[in-house]
């Protein structure tokens, strides 16, 4: 099977199905760290941040593509310090980063003082090196790297670099010539030549960025020679010593066999170097437990433990049980107990948290009590501790009563208004647990405040209970917390009730309750809701000029007018058709869908399938529209009117057929199944409409409704 060239540790399975690993990626607070309430930034050195546990290849970075620009800024700064005032910073920036060799040559002829001259001599050679050292990342489909790159003949260049290196007296220049020579040999010569060049000056060189850049090419040379022990050892030194190259060193680090890994360990001169290696293994080879134990044994005060601790806990936070978690908790507890690391407090917090995750709430609480005494009194460490304690308290509660509410109140107030930059995925779990405690105790209203469930409001009793709770004349501070937390506010419920009543044709009740939802009631409907077309066209209705625009409240008021007139026997046909149209239009099928759109029912449904299943039937029901069209039919005076009613009823019948079939399933299945989805059905309305073949309306329908035309064709 294929091993990709670019991502060497991922297998692309060409003839097999894809494997998903044990790590389940939960929905994230941030795209980088999945589920987490344990913030590495609080206690791990920023230099290690690319290695925080993440679904990205490198946390905060994704894939590292900075190869061509990584050292531009530091390079300019270093030359600037060395050159002093003789070259302006912007000029330096230009010369080092963008200038062509021609521009550099011309600059060289114009330089007069010794330092500038030396700089330009160096720059002229360095510019030549760009031919092989600046390899851009190839874009997909643009694979210019297919052809073997013509081998750069570096004989002359290397000789010049060697000459300059030997002749240089200033260590700054000497080191740079050395670097260029090592790199050139790596790219253009035999690996042994690169190593020879490297070794000739490595001991004398200060261990700065240039040194580590050279060291990384020496590592690469050993790798080419398949001397993996040495190569990986050098990579670990680069990883340890140079922050900019941590990602590169990490990516290049690749032990092959146990023997070369042991060889690498054997090359270490200090226990700190060994700790580095174990940390690298722990990160990239996903064995943080082993790495933690090895480093702890070497040196409990090693700061290399911090990153691994953060990764181990972040991994433990992901859903899915890992059998190594028990061992991990035991180990971390042991270390926390011993208090011999540089930050005993974070081990205590971690021990507590792992116990919380394992449902050992009492053990967790005692760890948090210890952490109380040791955690630094600064914002972030304190905030994390407070968060974890709160989570533990709530997760471990079996019931909820006013005593617990009072205890939790200040903590929850703090949590819901927390602005500090700490991870807090557990807030979701906290809300969920509170909701389930309230449900168990029978307090449905409070449960809904913490976890909104849309189907909650399908029950009138639930709706009334929450409305009452949210309407307390003198709510307590805890009540206020619930009000704030609740996604659905009092006005949202009133609006919902108004819509419900309207659709059920209880207009008086609707009028009363829409008053309580003042701002929502003012929402303007996009088209004329009292209009109906032969072929529904919402966009047409929305774009058509409207002398009167209706708000939600206006529509209900108008329906009241129509209803009163119908009751009084005034112009029943016309008013019933108008009312029927409105009832049709406020369903999903109509041009005034906006009427039903509210927090509880939802909005932006492109089709009935996306409507919440708890409410789908209501929002697509033709019942009320049919009732009004039927009433209109019975009051119709002539054939034109009767024809119109029959057609409008046919539309409703069609919709009801959809409701019974494809929309009843909710799976948006467009399968080409002609049995289930016949191409044509003879609606009762169509059948009845036939008798009005002499009317104008009949002919309009024939013109606009293809199905009706087909129907008349079939039955003639």
């Amino acid at each position, binding site marked *: 099977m294929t091993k*990709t060239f670019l991502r060497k540790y991922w297998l692309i399975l060409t003839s097999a199905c894809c494997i998903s690993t044990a790590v389940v990626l939960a929905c994230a607070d941030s795209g980088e760290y999945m589920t987490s309430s344990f913030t590495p930034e609080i206690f791990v050195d920023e230099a290690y941040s690319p290695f925080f546990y993440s679904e990205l290849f490198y946390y905060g970075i994704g894939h590292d593509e900075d190869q061509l620009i990584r050292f531009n800024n530091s390079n300019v700064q270093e030359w600037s310090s060395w050159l002093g005032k003789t070259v302006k910073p912007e000029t330096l920036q230009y010369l080092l980063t963008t200038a062509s060799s021609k521009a550099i040559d011309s600059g060289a002829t114009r330089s007069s003082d010794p330092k500038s001259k030396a700089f330009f001599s160096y720059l002229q050679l360095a510019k030549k090196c760009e031919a092989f050292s600046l390899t851009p990342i190839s874009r*997909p489909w643009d694979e210019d790297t297919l052809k073997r790159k013509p081998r750069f003949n570096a004989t002359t260049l290397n000789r010049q670099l060697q000459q300059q290196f030997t002749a240089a007296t200033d260590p700054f220049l000497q080191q740079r010539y050395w670097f260029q020579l090592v790199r050139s040999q790596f790219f253009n010569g035999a690996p042994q030549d690169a190593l020879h060049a490297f070794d000739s000056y490595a001991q004398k060189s200060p261990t700065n960025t240039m040194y580590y850049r050279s060291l990384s090419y020496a590592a690469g040379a050993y790798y080419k020679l398949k001397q993996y022990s040495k190569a990986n050892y050098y990579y670990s030194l680069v990883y340890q010593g140079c922050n900019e190259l941590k990602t590169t060193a990490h990516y290049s680090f690749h032990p092959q066999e146990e023997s070369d890994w042991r060889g690498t360990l054997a090359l270490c001169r200090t226990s700190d170097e060994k700790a580095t290696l174990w940390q690298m293994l722990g990160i990239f080879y996903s064995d943080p437990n082993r790495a933690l134990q090895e480093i702890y044994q070497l040196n409990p005060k090693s700061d290399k433990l911090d990153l691994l601790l953060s990764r181990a806990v972040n991994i433990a936070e992901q859903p899915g049980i890992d059998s190594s978690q028990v061992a991990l908790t035991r180990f971390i507890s042991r270390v926390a107990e011993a208090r011999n690391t540089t930050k005993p407090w974070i081990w205590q917090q971690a021990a507590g948290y792992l116990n919380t995750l394992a449902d050992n709430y009492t053990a967790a609480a005692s760890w948090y009590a210890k952490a109380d005494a040791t955690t630094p009194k600064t914002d972030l460490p304190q905030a994390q501790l407070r968060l974890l304690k709160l989570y533990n308290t709530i997760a471990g509660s079996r019931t909820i009563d006013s005593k617990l509410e009072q205890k939790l109140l200040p903590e929850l107030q703090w949590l819901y208004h927390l602005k500090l930059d700490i991870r807090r995925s557990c807030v979701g779990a906290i809300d969920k647990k509170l909701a389930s405690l309230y449900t168990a105790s029978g307090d449905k209203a409070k449960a809904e405040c913490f976890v909104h469930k849309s189907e909650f409001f399908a029950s009138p009793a639930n709706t009334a209970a929450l409305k009452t709770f949210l309407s307390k004349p003198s709510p307590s501070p805890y009540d206020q917390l619930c009000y704030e937390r609740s996604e659905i506010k009092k006005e949202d419920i009133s609006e919902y009730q108004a819509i419900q009543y309207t659709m059920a044709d209880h207009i008086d009740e609707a009028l009363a309750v829409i008053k309580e939802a003042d701002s929502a009631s003012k929402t303007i409907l996009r088209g004329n809701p009292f209009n109906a077309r032969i072929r529904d066209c919402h966009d047409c209705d929305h774009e058509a000029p409207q002398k009167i625009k209706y708000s939600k409240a206006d529509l209900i008021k108008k329906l009241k007018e129509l209803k009163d007139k119908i009751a009084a026997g005034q112009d029943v046909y016309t008013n019933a058709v108008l009312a029927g149209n409105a009832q049709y239009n406020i369903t999903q099928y109509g041009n005034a869908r906006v009427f039903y759109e509210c927090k509880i029912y939802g909005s932006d449904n492109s089709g009935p399938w996306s409507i919440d299943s708890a409410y789908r039937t209501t929002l697509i029901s033709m019942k009320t529209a049919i009732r009004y069209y039927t009433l209109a039919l019975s009051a119709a005076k002539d054939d034109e009117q009767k024809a119109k009613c029959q057609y409008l009823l046919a539309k409703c019948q069609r919709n009801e057929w959809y409701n019974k079939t494809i929309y009843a399933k909710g799976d948006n299945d467009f399968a080409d199944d002609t049995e289930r989805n016949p191409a044509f059905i003879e609606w009762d309305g169509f059948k009845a409409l036939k008798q009005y073949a002499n009317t104008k309306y009949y002919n309009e329908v024939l013109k606009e409704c293809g199905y009706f035309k087909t129907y008349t064709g079939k039955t003639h």
Partner: protein
Amino acid sequence: MSFYYWRTTFSLDSQEIHTLRDNTVDTLYVRYFDVDWPAADTAPTPLAPIRFESSPAGYTIIPVVYIRNKVFEKLTPAALPGFTNNVHTLIQRISQSQAIVSREVQFDCDWTERTKDTYFQFLRTYRTLSKQALSCTIRLHQVKYSGRTGIPPVDHGILMYYNMGAIDTSSLSSIYDKSISHRYTPSLRSYPLTLDLALPVFTWGLKVRDGKVVQLLDKMNTGLFDKDSSFRRQSPNRYTAAQGCFKSGYYFQAGDQVKIESVSAGDLKEIVTDVNQHTNHHIRNLIFFDLDSQNLQSYDKDLFKEILAHTD
């Protein structure tokens, strides 16, 4: 007979060259690149295009491109011509870099009912663009359910007689198992496309942790583990790591298990017998997956001749 070449660097060693010569193989099906559509991207992208370290001169090379089904799920009709063009251009570029002239191109895609239309349209568009013969891989489920997944518009197909099972910790091999293949072979008789037969001659390992397969161990065989003191043998093809260790560039945690899956000479003969039976001896060519001395060393050097003879 011929072989698939599926490594990202084209470089034949002496064992591979000898095998080709001994079996008078002149045609190689070479994977040029994969195509995938990573979630974060807005377009499909080629992966790991092959690099040539030794020359393919002397062999007829047929380019093969593996396209993940996901690509056709996401590709819109409007984007299809551009995509086809990109694929064609890249194939051309690779061929030209080695002066390869091929009259045929092969596509490997595990297409489904949902992607059938897009994939088939891709094949048609490609053919018009390149004016070359086209072939594509056919998996067993696509033979059996060809009513749903359709017959691709190609000149002939390659029946991929491997990777038919689930990659899991069960006793069955995911590469080949008679009980699995028997569910499909009766459908071969009525399949309308001419078929070559692609046979597996590879092994791999499954790294198992907490009862789940977490990694594929490319081309690892039992021989490697038998000799390794870091591993304890549980059964002829299963091992457990006694301690955390590196091996062939992979890392094993203490307690990780390894399940080795392989295909024996007997399996291969069994396959050929079955396919002969269900196609009335209408196998056109044999293509072995894949040419790699790591695979070859598991088999007798006369194996390929024997299997070929078995097709008669």
